[in-house]
């Protein structure tokens, strides 16, 4: 019975972590569904290909080759170590030790060696990342929106990754020592340890029992660390390791210059242009909808998914012409604000038994200022730069639509431009009748 205690503790811990994780996933799902549905179920093949290329293949990360390579190392490390995780879970549940070893034979050795090399490379990459982020003055890590939590979040993840990898290597090193020096523990002789073999001398001064305790502690701390990491994701920019996949799958496939045409507007404009349509007939009585977006409820589900996926890397902002010339606009901040607002709304719903009770705030004005919105040149540099298919420009445009169509709140020069178009068919005060005058100057 006593020997079953570790299994029970493991199963309890694991189930609890999984329970919390599922709860968080549900919250994310609920919050994303606060948005408006748009149809992105077309072109399944192209979408799948896009996901494999950008999320799985990291095709946009090679834009910055060195950082891209390091990122790929950490990412592959993450993927392969998940295979190891499978064994850990089985071992923990059944009370076995290296349960896959007898089945996989020499392939098992290969796998373990592979994991170790990646664990080592991950440590190296993460140290370089930390230095880049904290010691080299890289502009995109220093912006205003990166103060406080976003900066800590980025560093916490780096520390956790190092700790997990060190635990993993310590566990393997101690295991190898026991395999060689302490037959009384009956550790199966399996695995090949190209990295942790160098740790062996460290254990020589300990008793067999102590090494056994070190091995077990590393094993437990490693898995507990991973379970904590899993539940930390929800609070972190690291959600992208999961959401990059759906996000790239559902990303826009059209030419970037193509902005959506609002259907509700089309109906009204058609009615205005064609007096024969009866505005009261059933087909034309469209529900009066809100034009554009002032809060997360008016954005699409894809835009909200974008916000959760954003990894706050700032590639968008460093390419943004407005930001580069000192304007307040930062596309990364647009995404971070959207996520913050969505979280606040989500908490509000949780606290009010599933219903949102207005808190007198909105994404527009309380989070994103008009000054930011009007600085955008709609150049698509941010969209092009994002390594995981996020579209900050679409949110900016939706908010401009709200400002102009619901609030008539455009800068006065733009109002002039628009009334020129309305009256003369050109953005300048020239008469449309004179449009061919250039011909006389040839």
């Amino acid at each position: 019975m006593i020997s079953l205690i570790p299994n029970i503790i493991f199963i309890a811990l694991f189930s609890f972590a999984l329970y919390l994780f599922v709860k968080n996933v549900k919250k994310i799902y609920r919050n994303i569904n606060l948005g408006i549905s748009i149809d992105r179920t077309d072109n399944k093949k192209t979408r799948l290909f896009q996901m494999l290329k950008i999320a799985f293949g990291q095709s946009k990360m090679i834009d910055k080759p060195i950082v891209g390579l390091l990122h790929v190392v950490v990412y592959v490390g993450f993927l392969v170590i998940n295979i190891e995780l499978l064994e850990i879970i089985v071992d923990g549940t059944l009370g076995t030790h290296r349960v896959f070893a007898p089945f996989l034979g020499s392939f098992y050795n290969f796998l373990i060696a592979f994991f170790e090399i990646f664990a080592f490379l991950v440590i190296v990459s993460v140290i370089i990342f930390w230095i880049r982020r904290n010691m080299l003055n890289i502009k995109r890590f220093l912006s205003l929106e990166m103060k406080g939590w976003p900066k800590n979040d980025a560093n916490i993840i780096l520390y956790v990754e190092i700790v997990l990898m060190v635990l993993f290597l310590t566990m393997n090193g101690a295991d190898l020592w026991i395999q060689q020096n302490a037959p009384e523990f009956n550790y199966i002789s399996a695995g090949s340890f190209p990295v942790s073999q160098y740790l062996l001398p460290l254990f020589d001064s300990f008793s067999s029992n102590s090494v056994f305790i070190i091995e077990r502690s590393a094993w437990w701390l490693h898995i507990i660390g991973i379970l904590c990491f899993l539940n930390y994701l929800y609070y972190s920019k690291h959600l992208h390791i999961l959401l990059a996949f759906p996000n790239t799958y559902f990303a826009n496939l059209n030419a970037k210059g193509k902005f959506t045409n609002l259907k509700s507007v089309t109906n009204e404009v058609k009615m205005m242009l064609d007096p024969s349509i009866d505005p009261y007939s059933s087909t034309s009585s469209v529900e009066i909808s809100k034009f554009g977006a002032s809060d997360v409820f008016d954005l699409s589900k894809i835009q909200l998914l974008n916000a959760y996926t954003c990894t706050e890397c700032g590639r968008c902002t460093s390419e943004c012409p407005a930001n580069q010339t000192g304007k307040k606009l930062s596309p990364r901040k647009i995404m971070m604000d959207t996520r913050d607002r969505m979280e606040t709304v989500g908490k509000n719903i949780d606290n009010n038994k599933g219903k949102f009770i207005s808190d007198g705030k909105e994404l527009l004005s309380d989070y994103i200022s008009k000054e930011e919105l009007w600085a955008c040149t709609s150049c698509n540099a941010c969209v092009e730069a994002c390594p995981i298919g996020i579209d900050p420009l679409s949110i900016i445009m939706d908010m401009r639509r709200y400002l102009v169509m619901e609030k008539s709140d455009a800068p006065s020069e733009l109002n002039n431009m628009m009334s020129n178009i309305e009256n003369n068919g050109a953005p300048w005060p020239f008469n449309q009748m004179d449009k061919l005058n250039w011909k006389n100057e040839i």
Partner: protein
Amino acid sequence: MKKIEIHTFSELISQGKTPEILFWVGCAGSFDDRAKKITKAFANILTQANVSFAVLGSEEGCTGDPAKRAGNEFLFQMQALTNIEVLNGYNIKKIVTTCPHCFNTLKNEYPELGGNYDVMHHTQFIKSLLKEGRVSVKGGVFKGKRITFHDPCYLGRANNVYEAPRDVLEKLDVELSEMKSCKQKGLCCGAGGAQMFKDAEKGDKEINIKRTEEALETKPDIIASGCPFCNTMLSDGIKYKKKENEIEVLDIAELINQASDL
């Protein structure tokens, strides 16, 4: 050399003729003094290449691009539906335009509203004329000149047209030197998204000055572009840098017009 004759669709159709191509001139191309030169250069290329074309003249309204990017979807769709009625009325199939904003709007945003046309940017059109041999260029005029090409956002990133203008430039025997941010990473001139019509928000620099500086780094004799708005922004930048006597800002159409044996 053929005399340039500009006809409208309505004129030609009343004479029983159907032009193959609509030259969509755009508001800048019709009214802005600098842009009018581009319009005339392109009209000359079309004429000399014996392209059967016409314009809409006073029947051409703003595509609605600046209104749409400013957020006024109503005004945009009013313009679009009115223009589509005219275009469909003449049964127009093929459009070529010297403005990337018109190009983008006509090509991408009109179809859903009932306007389906084969739309080309003039750099693409010139490329095909060169390829078919309908226009040929004399080497020599620009030989050895250093040219840098500024990618208009609405041609490049918005529509993935990066090569056509460069292919045309190559024919001119020039030395093409790229800016450090070009093609997909090209920096905006600062005019898009209706910015052309307003002052910029508070910042530490104007976008067009930054872009001009990037262009100057390539030590060009000529800065080429394919957009009347980029042209204005960069010309202003060059003036600000007091380089207008050394460096010209020219459209691809103007370059070809000067170099061809038209």
